[in-house]
């Protein structure tokens, strides 16, 4: 086990995200997003981030806050329909949007964390998603070769953490968080609760502490 971690404040965590970095952010319409670290990034005035996540939330929610605050130069997401600001900034050329089917996004992040060179998916064959991608035929069916995604930093939300930074997730707040925990050089987890080592049974841990580089303190 890695040694016990000192929990960081959200501000200290945000300081670990350099301007211009590629950042994975967990969550689905803000549910399971690290809200306190996002707020700290906005407060710091982070710039030029490439954000990989499911969606751009809403203007006042999740990744949407970073978009509205002008912290983001590019997003790689499956959906922007719930945040009109993303679309306005895209039309104005202020933000680049790369749309990825949600299941493909999940597999690409997983591949990045699992050391795979890519995966073959039937999703997107015959659509604009296939443009520029290799099509492979396996046993008579066509698949797109989709490449792995990795990031400089992953910002996660979790339910419980122990002081090794073993993590659990809760219900639909899990979503992309455990996948992103494996696919970034620096992994920062924002827990709702921190418990002593040994409290979380081995079968209930979903992300092991050895993957997590920094733990944020519990909310006050």
């Amino acid at each position, binding site marked *: 086990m890695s040694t016990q971690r000192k929990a960081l404040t959200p501000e200290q965590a945000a300081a670990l995200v350099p301007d211009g970095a590629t950042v994975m952010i967990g969550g*689905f*319409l*803000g*549910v*399971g997003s690290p809200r306190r670290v996002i707020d700290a990034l906005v407060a710091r005035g982070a710039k030029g981030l490439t954000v990989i996540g*499911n*969606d751009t939330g*809403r203007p006042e929610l999740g990744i949407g806050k970073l978009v509205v605050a002008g912290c983001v130069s590019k997003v790689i*997401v*499956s*959906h*922007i*329909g*719930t945040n009109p600001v993303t*679309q306005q900034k*895209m039309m104005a050329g202020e933000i680049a*949007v790369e*749309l990825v*089917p*949600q*299941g*493909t*996004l*999940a*597999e690409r*992040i*997983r591949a990045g964390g699992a050391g795979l060179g890519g995966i073959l*998916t*039937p*999703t*997107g*064959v*015959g*659509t*604009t*998603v296939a443009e520029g991608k290799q099509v492979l035929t396996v046993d008579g069916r066509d698949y797109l070769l989709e490449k792995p995604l990795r990031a400089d930093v992953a910002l996660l939300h979790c*339910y419980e953490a122990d002081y090794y930074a073993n993590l659990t*997730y*809760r*219900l*639909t*707040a*899990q*979503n*992309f*968080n*455990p*996948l992103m925990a494996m696919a970034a050089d620096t992994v920062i987890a924002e827990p709702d609760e921190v418990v002593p080592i040994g409290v979380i049974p081995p079968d209930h841990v*979903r992300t092991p502490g050895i993957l997590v580089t920094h733990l944020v303190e519990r909310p006050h």
Partner: protein
Amino acid sequence: MDAKEIIARRVAQELRDRTLVNLGIGLPTLVARYVPEGMLVAFQSENGIIGFGARPPEGMEDPNLTDAGGGFISALPGAFAFDSATSFALIRGGHMDMTVLGGLQVDARGRLANWMVPGKMVAGMGGAMDLVAGARRVVVAMQHAAKGEAKIVPELTLPPTSARPVSLVVTDLAVIEPTPQGLVLRERAPGVAVEEILAATTAPLTVPDTVPEMSL
């Protein structure tokens, strides 16, 4: 009965006992209200749960428990929560018996477009492309026409969601089945004449000798 209720009630007749079903955001979500009595259908929400129930009473919501549209839900006994890779392994791997999706256009080959209007609106495909590629049956639930403009068209003018044809299209006017020979009119909405449906459809539509009324 308004247009949405007609569509939701008719789509609900496509549900089968002991199956796994994904309902898209918006209109398709209404289908859950009309599950036939005694039938057990497991609904998946692609953000990470199978076996969810209605929105809890005011003040009893859980911020970590929502549907794919961000609305609060509850968990039924025997529910299963999971991550996004598992969610789409279930969808892509052939474990999803049926999905119900909204649509912007369906064309004569049964192809669906439902995620962007170039130059006007970019929503993003979310999980729709995986659902259309992976679910065993794909049912499109949509208004037959939008502001007088046909949505069932000879050839998609919007970017397709998948090259694979959908299984069935249910609108407030009709039930239409894409087949290798083209679109076939299967049912009419209550009180709607075949001529009315043809007038609101620009794609070629095969009309069998008898086109029964939906039995809602």
